[in-house]
């Protein structure tokens, strides 16, 4: 998995931007993925900036919920090793401005703490100080493309994406073109990441029920087709 390999090869102390551009409705699909990535980043001694550009602004609260739901190692401190920069309005224009100069769009974190009181922000001024962007997005196609256009294309910063299932197929060409390092598809992507990173969680646990449900759907599709063909060639008028 390219995202894992890239994140794993970053030197300790590197800064990673993890966006949580998702809302309540997509949390079941991407919540476990967000947690797995965040836990892995902390375990690699990387500095994590969490930010939300999505207009429903729910990602900022979901990030705080995520902090309470996972066991953050005692030596990892908020403001030193990770920070929630909160919701930044303005969508693509805000992403472009953020990439150019973070302090031009916000000077406080989601909890209202000024950047000068957050050690993690000491040497982070623009996207040039960030080694990897992990975009976790729900809006149909929009947000990964915003990051591709305003970050990957303009600054060459490696970009990975984790998206809801319905968004994954249209984004595949960006992986093939090298614009995305990798693409994580819904809970399945989360399960794969949990597996390679060693932080097994609910995404992996959900895969049995996922497989069972898919088996049921496949059997239903085959049965419906047999029924359809039987009626078609069996002479039934119904």
């Amino acid at each position, binding site marked *: 998995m390219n995202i894992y390999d890239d994140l794993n090869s970053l030197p300790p102390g590197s800064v990673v931007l993890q966006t949580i551009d998702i809302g309540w409705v997509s949390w079941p699909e991407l919540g476990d993925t967000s947690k797995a990535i965040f836990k892995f980043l902390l375990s690699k001694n990387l500095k994590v900036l969490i930010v939300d550009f999505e207009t429903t*602004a729910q990602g900022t609260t979901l990030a705080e919920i995520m902090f309470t739901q996972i066991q953050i190692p005692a030596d990892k401190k908020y403001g030193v090793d990770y920070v929630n920069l909160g919701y930044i309005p303005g969508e693509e224009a805000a992403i472009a401005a953020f990439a150019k100069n973070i302090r031009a769009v916000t000077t406080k974190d989601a909890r209202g703490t000024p950047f000068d009181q957050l050690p993690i922000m000491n040497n982070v001024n623009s996207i040039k100080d960030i080694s990897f962007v992990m975009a976790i997005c729900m809006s149909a196609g929009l947000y990964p493309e915003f990051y591709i256009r305003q970050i990957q294309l303009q600054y060459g910063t490696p970009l990975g994406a984790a998206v809801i299932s319905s968004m994954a197929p249209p984004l595949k060409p960006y992986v093939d073109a090298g614009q995305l390092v990798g693409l994580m598809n*819904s809970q399945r992507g989360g399960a794969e990441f949990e597996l390679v990173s060693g932080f097994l969680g609910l995404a992996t646990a*959900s895969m049995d029920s996922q497989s069972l449900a898919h088996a049921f759907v496949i059997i239903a599709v085959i049965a419906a087709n047999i029924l359809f063909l039987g009626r078609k060639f069996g002479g039934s008028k119904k």
Partner: protein
Amino acid sequence: MTPIDIAAGLVSAALALMAWSLLYKENGFYRLGENLLVGGTIGYGVVLGLKAVWSHGVVPAMQGDLWLGLAVVVGLLFFVRFFGRKYVWYSRIPLAVLLGVGFGVSLNAMIQAQITVQLIATMKSLFVGGNILETINNIVIFVGVVTTMFYFVYSIEHKGPLNTVSKIGRYVMMVAFGGSFGFNLLGRIAMLVSPMQAVVVPPGAYLIPVALAIMGYVLWRDLQKRRAAETKAAT
């Protein structure tokens, strides 16, 4: 587990059960859950939106950043339309600014990221020496791109061999749509499995007997109603 965790687990499970109750039929519990979600989401969005305008616009403006103050004033022009029809045109100013900035920021990058780079990525050598799988992959991409694009060429009549090309394009699209459907299904199942985790483990699991009791009562009541209607119709 703290009392807040227990309450959160119960509320989460109750809302999931309310949503799933639609599988039987439209009912009060479903509507309550739906209204809670919509109301909560809108309320949350309004508060967060106002907070964002305050912290990113109003406060910096009061501290002397007049450009941001101007942006807030221009944004407020959206609401001038509520003061009468003759003021409606004022709301076109922020709309024009919004569209102008949006186009300005995205257009150039869009052409590069979504057209130029994608075109270059599609122009691959068909035959890759020593790698049969990549060769097949590149041929499939080439055939898929050309035939799908041809499907949308309406200036030539699709007859004879051209009809075959067009048909292949249609099949390529059908395969792509089938793939999309499969991915969608994956997401929908995740939507089911994840809330299920809140329902099947305590404290959410304690609501299952309650839900079963309500469901049993509703089924019994509906059966009584149907029987009464049948008796009435028979007499």
